[in-house]
């Protein structure tokens, strides 16, 4: 049994807007006996600057990895984008000597060196692999058997498949199994692995809104009472932007979008207040009243 202790990489979107994800994750991990250590002096994972300057992305990511190496702890990331970037750069720098030399050339200027001694995991990997489904099941006090939900795993936690390699990128099952152990029913729907579109919303809003609308439509079609996400960026697209989508396309969805940590927290006997349900933009009180 590995020691369940990780450096928490929070990223930027969570402290900026989605603290409900952080609050619920910290509570759930604590109760499962997973220790998270704060990460001093971390910076943006680097992903937002990849389109501008690839080397800048590599060095920002590598600096974060060096901070984790200094503490000799593996990273747990809550955001798909942060996970995808840190994990990809970590693997590339470990495998590609020439690239490592170039990035270490930059890092030398700030007194750091990438050594390649840690690994990067996403929250659902930690839950599915390190904690394990059995242990989570043991901690479920109030099985959510009344609920029928749909999951949105998102992109960077499964793709590129060759780089991530944790779940099947064509048919990811980790989040589905994590949902099933809470007692809730996880419904299949059309185009489950489709992107939320959020990364281009600053350049073109129309396309991401259409993509998100389509996903909400598919989820509504199978009768899901809620959508479950594991990324703050995806969450923003479906929760924060849901009223905008409704206005733009003259539709009513009213589908609550929960972080997986909130769903698990409910099953572990925590109250919606403790799990920051009040921060959700789409009202979930009807859903909660079913429990």
């Amino acid at each position, binding site marked *: 049994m590995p020691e369940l202790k990780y450096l928490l990489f929070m990223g930027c979107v969570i*402290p900026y807007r989605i603290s409900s994800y952080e609050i619920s994750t910290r509570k759930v991990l604590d109760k499962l006996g997973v220790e998270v250590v704060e990460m001093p002096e971390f910076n943006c994972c680097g992903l937002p*600057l990849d389109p*501008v*300057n690839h080397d800048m992305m590599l*060095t920002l990511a590598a600096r974060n990895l060096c901070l984790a190496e200094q503490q000799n702890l593996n990273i747990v990331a809550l955001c798909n984008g942060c996970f995808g970037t840190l994990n990809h750069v970590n693997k590339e720098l470990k495998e590609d000597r020439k690239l490592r030399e170039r990035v270490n050339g930059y890092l030398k200027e700030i007194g750091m060196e990438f050594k390649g001694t840690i690994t990067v995991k996403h929250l659902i990997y930690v839950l599915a692999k390190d904690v394990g489904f059995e242990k989570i099941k043991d901690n479920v006090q109030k099985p959510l058997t009344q609920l029928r939900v749909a999951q949105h795993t998102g992109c960077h936690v499964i*793709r590129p498949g060759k780089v991530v390699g944790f779940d099947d990128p064509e048919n990811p099952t980790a989040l589905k199994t994590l949902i099933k152990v809470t007692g809730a029913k996880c419904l299949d729907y059309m185009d489950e692995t489709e992107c939320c579109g959020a990364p*281009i919303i600053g*350049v073109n809003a129309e*396309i991401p809104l*259409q993509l998100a609308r389509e996903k909400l439509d598919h989820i509504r079609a199978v009768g899901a009472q809620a959508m479950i996400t594991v990324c703050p960026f995806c969450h923003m697209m479906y929760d924060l932007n849901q009223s905008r989508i409704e206005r733009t396309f003259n539709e009513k969805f009213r589908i609550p979008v929960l972080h997986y940590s909130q769903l698990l927290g409910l099953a572990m006997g925590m109250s919606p207040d403790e799990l920051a349900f009040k921060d959700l933009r789409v009202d979930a009180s009807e859903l909660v009243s079913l429990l």
Partner: protein
Amino acid sequence: MAETEKGEAKETEQRMVLKITDVDPRFKYEISKIPGAEKVMLCFQCGTCTADCPIARFSDFYRPRKLIRMTQLGLKDRLLSSDVIWLCSTCFTCIDHCPQDVGIADIIRALRNLSVRERDMPVVFKELASNILKTGYAYMIPELRLKKRAEEGLPLLPKANLENVAKLFDITGLSKILEKVGT
């Protein structure tokens, strides 16, 4: 942006006859030297990327296969001045599905990097870069949110090492680029 009249005008322009003077035969070599873009010449135009691209389904202009073909042909100016290269949402479906392992999304990233170096970038990226330089975070986190963290029982948000971040902006050449394109 790309779905506007401007985009339409550009699209019409792109459909015009190719002139030999528009083509830069060295461009494919320039691109294939960039990490991630090495396999650009392996694309045999099957179109799997475009067929499986979520953005292409909702855009009349964004076609990953076309961007790769234009790169192979060396239509550098058209590519680097096009709004369309900024529409990839980096879902990486094209990377997973490509039978030739071409790394389409990485090639589009390389095109964006070149376009930034030689021309300009969408304003949202200037904002993100400026935020990271000023705070270490991609977004300006309001004072109110920081206070609310304490009320919610969350630990203080760590302060980034701004000296380190500024140094990295300088040595990777990003500071110079930002200076050139203006904010």
